[in-house]
Structures are given as structure tokens and as C-alpha cells.
């Protein structure tokens, strides 16, 4: 699973560092997804420099690297919070009340879908099914699962991360 390790305010990435991260893989175009995973894991998102570095290394166009990354919801092209709260809104979660969960999260964090809190701690993303229909409605905070949720449970869950993160 992916980790987010970078503060959204710190947008600078070292080119030599990115190069090392990308070049640990072979130049086969099939390595695009594994490289995107590695970059995302290290920097929290796909930086512009990384997009170009990957394109040059694999001999493809930057537009293709960027387009591929944006196709998958688990890759990000902008800085994310330390904790990414992913809320499933596929039919089973939706029927079980994901909208009320979303409302509770938005009220607690003060940000909407796709946004990051000012302190850089949380990003909220409404996503498609991640296979936790058995415990719907569910969220994932980075790689931890929280299921069978009610809106009342949300403040406690988030404050645990808030304490951990500060």
C-alpha cells in the first residue's frame, strides 16, 4: 500500500534523488506502473520533475506518463496530506450510507473531496470500490481499514490520527 511521507508545503524534490528512485527499474515500458508506485511512495505524489525523468528513462512521452498516472485514483499528481482518507462510494457503501460518512468527515476536517487540510495532515478522496463491501460503509486511512461506520464514529477515528501526526 502507498504511504504519504511528504509535507504538501515542501514541494521541492531533488532531481538526482528522483533519478535514483526511477533508475532502480529497467527501461522496459512495462515498468511504468511499478515506477509510479515507487515515486508515489517516496514523494507522496508524482512531481513534474519525476514525470519527465520517468518519460526520458522509459523512452515515452511525458504526456503518457502523466495520463497514465491520472487514470488511477491511487496515484496523485499533487501533494497529499500525511493521512489520505479514502472513502468508498461504490453502490454497497453508498446504500449503507457513505454520503453521511462523507458529510461527517467533511465537517470534521473542514475540507471537501480532493482537498487537503491547511495543516497538511489530511486529504479526503472519494473513491471507487476497494473491496471492503462486507464492512460497508468503509474508509481507508493510508493503509488502515475502518468499516461498519456510522457518522458518530468519525471524530474519534480522525482525532487518533491527528494526535499521532502532530
Amino acid at each position, binding site marked *: 500500500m502507498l504511504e504519504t511521507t511528504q509535507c504538501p508545503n515542501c514541494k521541492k524534490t531533488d532531481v538526482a534523488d528522483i533519478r535514483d528512485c526511477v533508475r532502480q527499474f529497467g527501461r522496459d515500458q512495462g515498468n511504468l506502473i511499478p515506477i509510479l508506485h515507487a515515486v508515489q511512495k517516496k514523494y507522496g505524489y508524482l512531481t513534474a520533475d519525476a*514525470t*519527465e525523468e520517468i518519460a526520458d528513462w522509459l523512452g515515452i*512521452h*511525458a504526456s*503518457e506518463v*502523466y495520463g497514465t498516472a*491520472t*487514470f488511477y485514483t491511487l496515484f496523485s499528481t499533487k501533494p497529499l496530506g500525511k493521512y489520505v482518507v479514502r472513502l468508498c462510494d461504490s453502490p454497497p457503501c453508498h446504500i449503507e450510507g457513505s454520503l453521511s460518512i462523507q458529510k461527517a468527515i467533511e465537517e470534521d476536517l473542514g475540507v471537501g473531496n480532493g482537498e487537503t487540510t491547511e495543516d497538511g495532515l489530511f486529504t479526503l478522496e472519494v473513491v471507487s470500490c476497494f473491496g471492503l463491501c462486507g464492512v460497508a460503509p468503509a474508509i481507508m486511512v493510508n493503509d488502515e481499514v475502518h468499516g461498519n461506520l456510522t457518522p458518530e464514529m468519525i471524530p474519534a477515528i480522525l482525532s487518533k490520527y491527528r494526535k499521532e501526526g502532530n
Partner: protein
Amino acid sequence: MEQVTLTIDGKEVSVPKGSTVLDASKAAGIGIPTLCHLENVHAIGACRICLVDVGARSLQTACTYPASEGMKVVTNNPRVRSARKTVVELMLSAHRQECTCCPRSLNCELQKVAKILGIQEHRFDGEMPEQILDTSSPSITRDSSKCILCRRCVTVCQQVQGVGALFPVDRGFETAIVPALKNDLIDVACVMCGQCVSVCPVGALYEKDSTDDVWKAIADPTKHVVVQTAPAVRAALGEEFGMPAGTRVTGQMVTALRQMGFDKVFDTDFTADLTILEEGNELLHRVKNGGTLPMITSCSPGWIKYIEHFYPTLLPHLSTCKSPQQMFGALAKTYYAEKAGIKPEDIFVVSIMPCTAKKYECQRTEMSAHPGIPDVDVVLTTRELGKMIREMGMDFANLPKGECDSPLGLSTGAAVIFGATGGVMEAALRTVYEVVTGETLDNVNFTAIRGLEGVKEATVKVGDLDVKVAIASGLSNAKKLMEKIKNGEADYHFIEIMCCPGGCLGGGGQPIPTTNEIRKARMGAIYEEDEHLTIRKSHENPAVLALYAEFLGEPLGHKSHELLHTHYTPRAKYPETDKEEVTTGGE
């Protein structure tokens, strides 16, 4: 070749193994509507309009489904008709329908398909994707609100041109075709060739329209408005008026321009001849003096922008000659201005080009003989000229044939063939051969270097020297030659490169569509035009000779360098400030 036999709508047809159902139905004379399909280039089943019933559980796309032995295909039953109709109706629900004022009105593939399928109402009325309107480029405008996501532009930019400026981003309803990092077109390594425009089935990609600027200049009594037309325009303009591809309309075009109110109707062919004299001499100079070889032609602005972005270290290989359109501009505001006794700032130069990249070229800061005054004021595509002629209400096909004005309107057959891939090379060889050997060519037709093949090579004996030449059209073909040069494997003397497949006749500013059949027809017209001209060698153009005698002195002389030659700028592959370094070719 192994054949397979199948039945389509009860009709038996045999096609080579590997054919698709779409190929087979064409062979059987059965029409299947398509939208994303682009013959020999793009078959990805994206638009779902060519759905047919192959007896499987679900309908299949004819453009991707392989024809197989004994297969029974139905292309027209209620299920197929209803599915196709729904597909197009859904497409229309996310398409900004403003057909009456769309640049592609009456030449829109979506409009045609909707008509063919009998769609007469808006069945689905819903949310529209967010509009991205990108007017940053001087050549090409992008409007995502018309885009149907067929991805033809992506394929042509990536595979045919090897530029990769466009790619789909995001997914589902949010999908859009955009440059990397969602940048504006002007900020990425787009070469502005307009091949994307040429294949766009709708009005999502189109040239920046400059027709109003030209009407305004014509109406301005203080402006002396002169026009030049590129050789490829006269081989295609007729298509704008329903004439078959390959109809030569030079005479009608000249008359139309005159009736529109241009003060002088000149010809880019004149400066094409001049290019041959300058470039031919530059080549001989480089061969004699150990200059950078192979020397590469520099007429095609899309090609120039490509090499600046993708192979900046090879810039010294480029001929320093400006393109014929820019040589014309420089001379119009110096030589012609003097001769006609008109101030350069009162002369307004319009170019009619088969090209969208020329719109960018004329704005390059170095293209100006007088500081602050561009040599060429406005570039129009062949399509824009068609539009203006329609606005005039002329019966184009039946216009009397006119002749260009002198002196900048006199030209030769060698200049006309600039419009076809291999033409600049052939024109140069006609001149170089005679200049070097002092003999007259028995046969001016160098047929070995004609044709639509992507890369062509030949060795031509010129006196004691075996001149090795190569020709490429389409930038992915140019790339092959650039890699050869980079790896030290290119022992050519001279390379001609044209950005667009087939050369300018297939340019991004030409009438839509441009298919291989149409390219061949336009090419036929160009060589026919050459055959019909009495003078077929650039160095025999009397007006060019007079220009040297009266004004320029000699090829590669001081004035030539000042007005007819240029320099190039290495550019980054990715957005950042372009480096200010300047590279000159030659010695």
C-alpha cells in the same frame, strides 16, 4: 495470401486473413459508420459506432473484430441500429452542439454520423464535462467541449509525428485529451504541425482563425496588401469547393485572390526558386569547405520546431536558409518596397499556406527585416482561404484563370514540386547538377525520389561526386534519420525533411480530410503542374536572376545573409524558459 470467407448481411465475401470485419464489409460494398477509425493508423474501437452483430452475446466493433472463416455478420438489424444510435446520442449529450457556428460545420464527422443514423432529437440532456478552451498557441485552438475522445489526435501526434504532445488524462466522465501536466499547448513541445487538426472528426481542434485580420487589412486604404500562396495550396484548394482531389486550380485561385481585393497576387514559388539558389550554393559551399554534413533542409517550420526541441545538438546540420514564405516576407518589405516606392510599414503581407506551423513561424522574432515589423503579417491556411472565398460568394470552379503579378510571382516547375515530399531535393538536384557540371540535364525528372514512402534514399552522380541524399516526411520518419546522424551512421550529403506525411500537400492546414488516396491525387496535381511549366529549373527563373542582379548581388552574399538566412534556438523538451543561446549552421 491466405483468404477467409465470411457472410455479411447474407452476402459472401473473401478477404485476406488478418482483415477486420470493417475491411470485409468494405470489400462487400456494405457501409458501416465509423468515427474514431483512421485507416492504417488508428483502429482501437473507442467510439463504438461501428458495432455489428457477429452472433456473439454482445455486439462487437467492426474496426477491431477479426474476420474469420465461416463467420456470419449482420450489420443492420434493430439491435445494431438501436445500439449505434444510443452510442451517438450519448456522445451528443456531452458534446457542445453549436453546429451553425462551429468551424467544422458541414464537414463534421459526428454531424454526418448523426444524420446517417437518423437522429432527430436530443434524447439525453444532462451534465456536460468541464470545458477546456486553450487558445495559447498561435497555430492551434483546442476546445474540449466538442471532443468525442476518439483519440485520433493522440495517435497521430504520438505515432505518426513522434511528438506526443497530447494524451488522455483522468478517467470516466472527466477524461480529457490534454498536453502533459495539463499544460497549455504553447508550454509543451508541440510543433504546431496541425496533423491533429487534420484528423479531428469534430471541431475540438482547429486552426487559429485570422481571416478577419486579412479582411480588415484589405479594407484599410493605407495598406498595400500583397499575398503569396504556397505550392501545395493550388493542388488542394479545389477540394474546399467540392472539386475532386488532385484538381489544379492555380488560375482560379489567382483570380479569386485578385477579386478579394489583394493589391498584388504573388507566389511563394518565386522564393522557392530563390531558396534553391541559396540552399544549393550553401550545400556546395559546405561540401567544398568541410562544413557540417549532412545538410538538412529548413523549409518546414514544424520540422524546425521539432529539431529545436528534440535534437538541439543537431541544429548545425540545418541549412541556414529561411523558408520560402519567410524569404518572401523579407523581400516584400525590402526589395519590393523599394521597387514599388512603398514604405515597408504600409505593406501588409499575407501568406496562404497548407500549414498551421507557418502561423507560428511568422511570429518568430528573428523573422523581421525592419525592427518591430514582422516580414509576414498574417498566415492563412488553405481552409481559411476557402472560407474567405465562400464569404465572397464566388463560383470558384468557374472563375477565369488568372496569372500572378511580377516580379515576385514568377516561378518555375522546380518551385511547384516543393509541395510534395522529395520536391525540394529534386529541385535542388536540377540546379546543383547543372551548376556543378555546366551541362544541361537530359531528364529533369528524378523519379527515384518521388512518392509517399516515409524515408527515401538515393545516390546521384553530379560530375565527379556521388551525391548521397535522403528524404523523410512525417516526424517519426525524420527521427529515424536523426538517430542515424547522432550515431554517426549517416553518410548523406543532403537530407530533405518535411514535417507532415507526404510533404506540404498533406499539411495540417489543408482541406479535411487528407487520406493517402487524397495525398496521391494532390501529388499528381503538383507534378502535372511542373510538367506544364516551360521553365522547370530554379536557376533559370528570370525574375530571380534579376533580383540577384539588381538587389542581392550573389547567392550567400552579404544581403542574402542579412535577409534570407536565419539562426535557430535550442528549446527544452519540457516547459522551462527557452535557452537564449543561438546556433548557426554551416561552417
